[in-house]
């Protein structure tokens, strides 16, 4: 059995899976249930200014019969009295001393408010802070949340205030509602944050009710942009995470990865791109805390199969494989191959390639079953057919290099090799 325990800036947890700051972590009742279920740690629901929520807060995007491929909310930070939150945080730490307790903060935009809040929370015995510079709705209008995270200068100033007062590790949570997360990431690292986490939710309109013609979620005839999360945002989160892991400044601090993690595989992908811990929100809002079991078991089995004994053995391992386009090997070539024994004659590969790709699949009429085969000389190896094929390993991509030598785009041009030749 591999060791899946985590040590994040000295904050220990039995596994690298934390609950993200959100409704699942907004009171003792939930957090105790999460700890009982086995979660390694929580980031307590953001504490800070006084707020008031509206009713009708969530909406979702379904896909092909699957529910909640993407999830959207217009909730604010914690709407419970601060002293109750603080009492409950202390109680949870007392009952589960081996779990990570991080508290998310979003104070009013002045040094004094931040210092006061930090002091009060440290008294609970919490192990770390997460600064919420990401909430995309409700708080931004008041100069908080994403409006801090979107401006590297302001973000830097706030982190400096925080670092003056904090005696426990500080994680800064980045907003994805920017063209690049790196500028703010750099600014807050330079201001002294001990770690980064990303992503918060992405601004969105999930859909419109075609009867009322009002977007979701519906609040008395109106709606607002909400924050999008869940499986749909994972690829975007991974890309943003990778840019933080690649940058020489931001990569100097540990990262907690967030955004669409639902399974142990998702979690491993975040870790391979540099996350030391992984945070989850939507997946537990959809399934409950019990998913922690497979997260741990799946991670453990995979690590055993791959021969990794601790999570540090693979964190960040895939970062160097993400390169620049111009460094890719142009001599690499592969073509599709259809295993006729596995083919169920659905024709999906054919119509995709015929209508939208390179007309590289032949159709031989049959009643009721047509036969499909690859025209290798036409195939550019785009992968489309393989991605579409509903049968596992029916279409495989077979390597047929154009040359043994590694030749990238720069070299290709230098040598005057043929262009636009397909």
């Amino acid at each position, binding site marked *: 059995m591999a060791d899946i325990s985590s040590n994040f800036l000295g904050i220990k947890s039995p596994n690298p899976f934390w609950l993200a700051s959100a409704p699942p972590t907004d009171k003792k009742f939930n957090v105790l249930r999460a700890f009982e279920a086995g979660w390694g740690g929580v980031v307590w629901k953001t504490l800070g200014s006084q707020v008031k929520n509206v009713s009708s807060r969530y909406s979702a995007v379904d896909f092909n019969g699957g529910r909640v491929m993407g999830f959207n909310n217009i909730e604010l930070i914690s709407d419970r009295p601060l002293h109750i939150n603080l009492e409950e945080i202390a109680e949870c730490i007392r009952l589960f001393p081996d779990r990570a307790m991080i508290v998310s903060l979003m104070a009013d935009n002045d040094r004094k408010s931040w210092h006061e809040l930090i002091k009060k929370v440290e008294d609970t015995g919490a192990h770390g802070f997460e600064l919420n510079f990401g909430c995309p709705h409700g708080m931004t209008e008041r100069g908080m949340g994403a409006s801090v995270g979107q401006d590297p200068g302001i973000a830097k100033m706030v982190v400096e205030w925080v670092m003056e007062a904090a005696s426990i590790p500080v994680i800064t949570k980045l907003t994805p509602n920017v063209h690049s997360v790196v500028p703010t990431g750099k600014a807050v690292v330079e201001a002294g944050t001990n770690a980064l986490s990303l992503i918060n939710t992405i601004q969105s309109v999930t859909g419109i009710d075609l009867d009322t013609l009002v977007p979701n979620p519906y609040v008395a005839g109106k709606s607002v942009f909400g924050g999008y999360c869940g499986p749909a945002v994972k690829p975007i989160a991974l890309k943003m995470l990778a840019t933080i892991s690649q940058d020489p400044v931001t990569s100097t601090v540990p990262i907690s990865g967030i955004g669409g993690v639902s399974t142990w595989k998702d979690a491993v992908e975040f870790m391979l791109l540099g996350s030391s811990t992984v945070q989850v929100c939507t997946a537990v809002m959809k399934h409950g805390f019990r998913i922690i079991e497979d997260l741990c078991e799946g991670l453990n089995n995979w690590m055993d199969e791959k021969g990794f004994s601790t999570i540090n053995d693979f964190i960040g391992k895939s970062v160097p494989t993400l390169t620049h386009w111009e460094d890719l090997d142009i001599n690499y070539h592969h073509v599709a191959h259809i295993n006729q024994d596995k083919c169920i004659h659905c024709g*999906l590969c054919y119509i995709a390639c015929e209508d939208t790709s390179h007309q590289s699949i032949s159709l031989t009429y049959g009643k009721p079953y047509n036969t499909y085969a690859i025209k290798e000389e036409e195939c550019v190896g785009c992968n489309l057919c393989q991605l579409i094929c509903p049968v596992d390993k029916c279409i495989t991509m077979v390597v047929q290099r154009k040359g043994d030598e590694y030749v990238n785009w720069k070299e290709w041009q230098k040598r005057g090799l043929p262009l636009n030749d397909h």
Partner: protein
Amino acid sequence: MAIANNRLTTEQYQQNFSDIHPPFVNKSAALVEANRCLFCYDAPCTKSCPTGINVPKFIKQITTDNIKGSAHTIFISNIFGGGCSRVCPVEKLCEGSCVYNLLEEEPIAIAKLQRYATDKAIEDKWKLFDRKPSNGKKVAVIGAGPAGLSCAHVLSREGTEVTVFEKESKGGGLMTYGIAAYKVTPQFCEEEVEYITSLGGIEIKYGQELGKNISLMDLQRDFDAVYLGIGVGVARQLDIPGEDLEGVVDAIRFIYDIRTKGYPAVTVGDKVAVIGMGMTAIDAATQAKRLGAKEVTLVYRRTEAEKPCTNVELDIAKLDGCEVIWLAAPKEVKGENGKVTQLVCSRMQLGELDTNGRRSPVNTGETFTLEVDMVIKAAGQVAFETLVSGELLQNNKGKILIDTNGATNIKGVYAGGDAVNGGKEVVDAVQAGKDGAKAILSYLENR
């Protein structure tokens, strides 16, 4: 007890004749299934549907909440799409070639989804088709069965005025009078006919029989073209001694009674033998059992490998408790006081391949006797030879001969469905009606 009616309670009848393939309970259930569909290209299911319904398209339309579009996709190819979703032997048609079969997975429940979309259309009386402006032509259709009405619908859509002459008092043909009651209810058949004719331009005249109160000559005079969709007639005679004893009945007649008189009124024996192994034989056997017969035995002269019904059909009969005797041919019906008491059968064995590539049964000379009080004949149906020959139509033992355009030997007279093929499925008759309409339209245009 012998032959008797009123064997069961109202509840028992209801239970025995309730829908054998119930619909989806709600939208969520339909969506689970619809979302399994892979949306195949040049789909095997479509190719295996005699009317070529674009199955992947109508299923996709269910998933996009476009039920109207879905129903339209079905009806444009098959105006009996609602009835077909209940009666088609899908295991040898669309569902039989679903690609999921090749993964050893359950095929998509195509018929059930088809019913989901078409039920809504028929219940809510959606108007999915418009008629083109009048082309000034009038066509007579004989027979308001699947072939006739499918032909009429296409013709009317194209702006033709259609008059349908039907000898019975209801439309739908064997859909209404022949198909097992647990597959489709008389009420649905009526609604379906109403829905089809709600297009307009189709007038059905009931109680009008070709050869009796109308003749082809009159019709040729009064109409620009004629379509014959008269189906086939009664069950084939066995031509054995004792066939006229009381208790020997024609399966078509037996089922007709079930469909028209109400279950309690129909008489059935204690011990029933059914001759044949086609759809009709199965339907007669299962319904005899469901009416309260104690023992029902299907007698077939070949083996299971040659049977004309599908495995699914045979399973229905077996699950209903019907017995099957393979390689047995009826030799004589014996009786007392004019009533059936025994069926004597010859034991057969398989011999040479016949012209259809099936091995012919050969009499071994051995016999055995079944104690029965009722014999139902379901060894194929005979076409209306006298009627057809009387109207000077070229035919093969009553099956009307047509050319590749659906035209008979008489100019302007077209035919299709069971009347031509000798008895296939509803879905084949619907396609024949479409083909006939197409041929008539081009005939009318080029005249």
